[in-house]
């Protein structure tokens, strides 16, 4: 954490705490000691070049099995996130907007989403939501994402355009109302109109009790979703952290320069 970041924090209610996280895939170390604290209400952005470990971080936090944690710890509102199965993490409030949402034939979007919501509600000991209660809420969210209800009668993501898939991710996030949302390259493959709609949806969901981690290559998305903090990930380490202005600097100077500087000085986050 930079001093700036510490100062900006008004109510430091820690939601997610990553300490010295090392992750390997197939014996190859990808994350080499990540430290990051995300408080409720904050939007953090992880930026970095290809292969820096951004997506790996997103996948580990959403508990994908193929990733092997070799050292470190992650606590999510006080619980050990790394001990959770993917569905447990989801029920605890972790949501991942996928970079490549999958298509699943034969499962209606609406049915799927209500099943997911009810699985989460069940986990939390809340009542199941029937179709009658679900639909008005769902329609409201559809409007927010400017999505046609007819699309929802189709199978999950089947025949959706790239932009529709991404909007569907944010729609799901709006319905499931997570505590912590990871947006993995949500801007990739989006035209400018779709980007604007997606960003509108995301911004509408910014709340004091919710945090987000926006993973992206480009600064473009951050014009629309303005983060509180930006972290630069290079070769499995956070080499710089700063405010939203850091993204602009990156855009201007490129990752190469930052990377070079980082090699000369000890990583700020270590």
């Amino acid at each position, binding site marked *: 954490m930079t001093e700036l970041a510490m100062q900006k924090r008004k109510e430091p209610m820690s939601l997610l705490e990553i300490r010295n996280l090392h992750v390997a895939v197939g014996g190859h170390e990808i994350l080499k000691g990540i430290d990051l604290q995300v408080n409720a209400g904050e939007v953090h952005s992880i930026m970095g070049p290809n292969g820096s470990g951004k997506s790996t971080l997103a996948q580990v936090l*959403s*508990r*994908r*099995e*193929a990733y092997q944690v070799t050292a470190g710890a992650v606590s999510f509102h006080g619980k050990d996130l790394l001990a959770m*199965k*993917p*569905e447990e*993490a*989801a*029920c605890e409030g972790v*949501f*991942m907007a*996928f970079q*490549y*949402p*999958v298509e*699943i*034939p*034969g*499962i209606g979007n609406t049915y*799927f*989403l209500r*099943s*997911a*919501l009810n*699985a*989460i509600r069940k*986990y939390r000991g809340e009542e199941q939501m029937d179709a009658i209660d679900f639909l008005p809420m769902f329609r409201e969210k559809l409007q927010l994402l400017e999505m046609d209800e007819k699309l929802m009668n189709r*199978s*999950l993501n089947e025949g959706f355009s790239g932009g529709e898939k991404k909007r569907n991710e944010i729609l*799901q996030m709006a319905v*499931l109302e997570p505590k912590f949302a990871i947006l993995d390259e949500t801007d990739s493959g989006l035209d400018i109109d779709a980007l604007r709609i997606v960003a509108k949806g995301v911004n509408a969901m910014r709340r004091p009790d919710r945090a987000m981690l926006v993973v992206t290559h480009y600064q473009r998305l951050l014009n629309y979703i303005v983060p509180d903090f930006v972290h630069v990930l290079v070769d499995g380490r956070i080499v710089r952290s700063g405010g939203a202005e850091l993204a602009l600097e990156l855009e201007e100077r490129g990752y190469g320069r930052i990377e070079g500087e980082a090699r000369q000085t000890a990583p700020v986050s270590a």
Partner: protein
Amino acid sequence: MNTNVDTIRNLAERDYKWGFVTDIEDERVPQGLNEEIIRVISAKKREPEFMLDWRLKAYRHWESLEKAQAEPKWANIKYGPIDYQAIVYYSAPKQKPGLKSLDELDPEILRTYEKLGIPLAEQKMLAGVAVDAVFDSVSVATTFKEKLAELGVIFCSFSEAVQKHPELVKKYLGSVVPHTDNFFAALNAAVFTDGSFVYVPKGVRCPLELSTYFRINAAETGQFERTLIVADEGAYVSYLEGCTAPIRDENQLHAAVVELVALDNAQIKYSTVQNWYPGDKQGRGGIYNFVTKRGKCQGMNSKISWTQVETGSAITWKYPSCILQGDNSAGEFYSVALTNNYQQADTGTKMIHLGKNTTSTIVSKGISAGHGQNTYRGMVKILKGAAGARNYTQCDSLLIGDKCGAHTFPYIEVKNSTAHMEHEASTSKIGEDQLFYLQQRGLKMEDAVSMIVNGFCKQVFRELPMEFAVEAQKLLGVSLEGSVG
């Protein structure tokens, strides 16, 4: 919303309370099969002469097949020899000491029943608990019998039909599946003990879904039921068949025959949800489900539609087929077959096109999990006279895990150059990315698998009556338990 399910359950429960069970309570023929046994069965059922003759003819044919070791071996299934002389062909069940209450039952079995929504009385029956009557062959109970009678619809047990409507039985019995058809059909014809009979008169659209619930209950018995459905000119009927069996260590033989006859402009829709006991996780026990089902579209513009969801049985050998004799007649086959653990299924259909402009549609969905082996075997035969015939076949396989297998054997025989044939096939695995996606949204692994599988089967499920489809979905979920992770 649950009326159909309730109907099925009610039927099942009523079966347990009354019927021919009391008649046979203390009667039991010895194990094994010979002419004497056939005569005893026929006598016990007070059958007219023609039935006994028919049975004896079938028996003699079967006997010659057995001597010639003509039990079919071409299917892609493996099982040890069946000792036909060790089977009880007509039985009142042994009154085993049995369990006194459900509390003594394996809780895992109880949980399964609860998930299936099987009511308590049925659970007790399935578990062989506190039985005052046990069935091996289940006769048909009909609700709304009076209402149906007003329309002239006959829906009764086969035994009753033999007594009350011998002329119809005589006319149609064996007209679609003759006793010479195959080994198991011959066996069935010789020894069948009951089943259902439906006759829908001219121009009548049967207003209710007719349902039967079959169950194998007693140990060491085979079940040989026979169903005959006749839809007269312009008639329509939808028939549902559900099957369950209790859990036993030994294998049990189920060799049923179903014959459907559709006359001019008639339509028959036949739906099955088969959940015979599949054996345990090591492949011990379970039902051998060797069934011959065939429909004849005898009249022009007639239509026969088979929909089956096969999740049970240790081995399934079953090819619900259509003989498309009448011009413009149509046959349909929609199938979901699931094999988990050590289950084997060799199933599919035969569409025999005889008439002009006949059409057939085949949609088969095979799901293999565990060590399950799933084979689709289909035959489309277009004969010389079938000008303008059309067939569409779609055959999809889904694999769960890496120890199971899916096999496809489509046979196509075309003797008329104006025929159109389409065949599509696919094999896929449930992807890790699909599972992870659903889990990340909060769904448990097993629910995620079940959801993907149900999605895969949707094309078939939508052919089922709504409430039956709901049952079928639940059944798939239960049958797949433990198949992943």
